[in-house]
C-alpha cells in the first residue's frame, strides 16, 4: 500500500462537486503531480489529505493513518506549503521557523540546528533575522518550503509552489525541490497548472479536470500516448484538411481550433510531405516536441490556458477526431 491512498474521495460544496470519487495510490518517495486548470479541485484534494477539510464521502490514508479517524496523527507526518503566503511577515524568518518547530513538536533543543540546516538548504543564510516583510516573493516561498520540512515530515504537500513567481525564481524553487528529494526521504504531492513544472519535477502525474482524474501516468508515458511530434499549421479550410489528415496512418491525432490544426505525427521527417499534401493551402507551420500541453488538450479537449468553461465547451466541439 502506498504512502497515500484515497478511496472514493469526494467533496461537494452545495451543488458543485469539487472532487469526484477520487481513487489514488501514491508511492513512497515519489513526486506526484496533480495537474489541472484553476478550479479543477487540486487544492480541495490537498486540503482533505491534510485534514483541513472533511470529505463529503470516501476516505483516505496518509502515512498509514486514516484522515477521518486519526487527523492529528496525519498532521504529525505531513508538511504543507500553501498556495498563498502563510508566514507572519512581522516576524523574522528564524522566528517563523522556531514557532513552527514548537507547534509541530520538534524538541526545543534541536530546533536551532534544524533552522540553520533549513536556511542552508534554501540558500537564505544571512537573512535569518530579517523580518519576513523584507523578503521578496521568491524568498518567502523558499522560507515556507523550508518551514514545511522543518519537522521532517514523511509527506510534503506543495500547493502551486511557484504561482506568481518570475521564471528565474521558479527555476530556483524547482532546484530546491529536486535537492530536497535527493537529500531527504520524503514523498511530495505537488499541484500545479504549469506544464513545464509538472514535466520537470513529477515522477507521475494525474491530470485533473472537474474534480476527476482524466489520465494518470509518468510524463513521458502520457506524452507517448498522444503520439509522436506535434505539427502545428494554419490552414484555410481546417474542417476539410482535418478530414484528409485523419486518413493518414502516420497521424494519430488531429485537433482543430479556429484555423489552427494540432497534428500528432509519427516519424515527422519522413511523413511531412504527406501531411502537407493532405492539408491543402497552408499559411503558417511549425514542428515541435509533444508537451504536456498537448496531452492536456488531448484528454480534456481544451487548452489549460483557456479561461472559462464556455471557451472549453467551444473547443470541445471543434476537436475533430481522436484516433485511439
Amino acid at each position, binding site marked *: 500500500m502506498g504512502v497515500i491512498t484515497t478511496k472514493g474521495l469526494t467533496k461537494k460544496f452545495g451543488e458543485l462537486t469539487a472532487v469526484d470519487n477520487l481513487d489514488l495510490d501514491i508511492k513512497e518517495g515519489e513526486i506526484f503531480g496533480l495537474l489541472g486548470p484553476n478550479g479543477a479541485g487540486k487544492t480541495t484534494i490537498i*486540503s482533505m489529505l*491534510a*485534514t*483541513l*477539510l472533511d470529505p463529503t464521502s470516501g476516505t483516505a490514508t496518509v502515512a498509514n493513518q486514516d484522515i477521518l479517524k486519526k487527523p*492529528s*496523527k496525519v*498532521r*504529525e507526518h505531513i508538511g*504543507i506549503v*500553501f498556495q*498563498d*503566503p*502563510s*508566514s*507572519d*511577515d*512581522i*516576524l523574522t524568518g528564524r*522566528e517563523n521557523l*522556531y*514557532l*513552527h518547530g*514548537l*507547534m*509541530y*513538536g520538534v524538541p*526545543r533543543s534541536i530546533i536551532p540546528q534544524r533552522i540553520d540546516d533549513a536556511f542552508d538548504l534554501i540558500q537564505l543564510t544571512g537573512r535569518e533575522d530579517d523580518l519576513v516583510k523584507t523578503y521578496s516573493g521568491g524568498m518567502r516561498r523558499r522560507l515556507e518550503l523550508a*518551514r514545511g520540512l522543518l519537522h521532517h515530515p514523511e509527506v510534503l504537500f506543495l500547493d502551486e509552489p511557484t504561482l506568481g513567481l518570475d521564471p528565474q525564481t521558479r527555476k530556483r524553487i524547482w532546484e530546491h525541490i529536486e535537492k530536497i528529494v535527493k537529500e531527504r526521504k520524503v514523498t511530495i504531492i505537488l499541484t500545479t497548472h504549469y506544464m513545464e513544472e509538472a514535466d520537470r519535477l513529477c515522477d507521475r502525474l494525474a491530470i485533473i479536470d472537474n474534480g476527476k482524474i482524466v489520465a494518470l501516468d509518468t510524463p513521458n508515458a502520457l506524452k507517448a500516448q498522444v503520439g509522436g511530434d506535434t505539427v502545428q499549421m494554419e490552414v484555410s479550410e481546417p474542417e476539410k484538411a482535418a478530414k484528409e489528415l485523419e486518413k493518414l496512418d502516420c497521424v494519430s491525432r488531429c485537433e482543430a481550433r479556429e484555423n489552427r490544426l494540432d497534428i500528432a505525427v509519427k516519424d515527422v521527417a519522413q511523413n511531412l510531405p504527406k501531411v502537407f499534401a493532405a492539408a491543402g493551402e497552408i499559411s503558417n507551420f511549425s514542428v515541435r516536441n509533444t508537451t504536456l500541453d498537448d496531452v492536456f488538450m488531448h484528454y480534456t479537449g481544451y487548452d489549460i490556458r483557456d479561461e472559462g468553461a464556455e471557451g472549453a465547451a467551444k473547443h470541445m466541439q471543434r476537436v475533430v477526431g481522436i484516433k485511439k
Partner: protein
Amino acid sequence: MNQLNGLYAIWLREVKVYFREYSRLIGSILTPLLWLLILGKGIGASIDENESFAGVPYEQFIFPGILTMTVLFQSVFYGLYIVWDRKIDFLKEVLAAPLNRSTVFLGKCLGGVTDSMIQVTIIIVLGFFIFPDLEYTLQSLMLVYLYLFLLAVIMTSLGLIIGSRMDSPEGFSLITSLVVFPMYFLSGALFLKKNLIDEAPLIYWITAINPASYAVDAIRYTLIPEDIFLEYGLSRDLAVLIGFCVFLLALGTQSFKTMKL
C-alpha cells in the same frame, strides 16, 4: 508536552507581534488619559463630589472604571487578529499543525490577556502618579490584577468567539462595538449603579448581568475603600467573574473546534 510547546508557541507569537507594533501600545494609552483628564475633570467640575462620592474627586472615582474600560476594549478587539490571521493565511499554518483546537484557543486567549495586562499596567503606573490618594498596596494591587485578569479572559474569549465566525475586519468591528459599548456604559465605570435602583430599575437589573459591573465594583472598592462604593462585595464579584470565565472558555474552545478556514 507537545500541546504545551504549541501553547507556548502561539502565545509567544502574539507577544512578539504586540511589542513590534508600537502604534497599538501608544494608541491604547491615549484613550484612557482622555477619559480621565478631560471627561473626569469636566464632569467633576459640574457636580457636588462631597454629596455623591464622599468627597472623592470624580476623576479619581472613575479611575477604576477606566482600568476596566482599557481591559474591556483591548481584550475584545484582540479578536480582530484572528480575522486578520485568516486573511493572511497564517491561521491555516496554525490549524494544520498537530495541535488540538483547544490548545490553539487557549494560546490565543493567553496572548490577548497578556497584551491587556501590559496595557493596563501602564495605566496603573500612571494612576499612581496622578492620584496619590488611591490605595496602592501590594495586597490591593494583587487583587486589582486578579479581577482585571479574569475580565481579560472573559473579554478575550468573547472577542475570539466573534472573530472565529467573521470573515471581514469591518464586520468584526461592527459586531464587537455593538457588544462592548453597552457593556462599558452599563458597568458603572462612570457612575454608582446602586443609585439606579429607584431611578431606573430596569437599567439596574441589566447592569447586574454584565460581568464588567463586577470587575468595576471589586476594583473600585479595592483602590478606594470607602463603604459608599461597596455594591456587590468582593467575594460575590469573584464568584461571578469566575463563572463567566469558565463559561466563555468552554464556549470559545467549542467555537474554535467548529471554526472553518
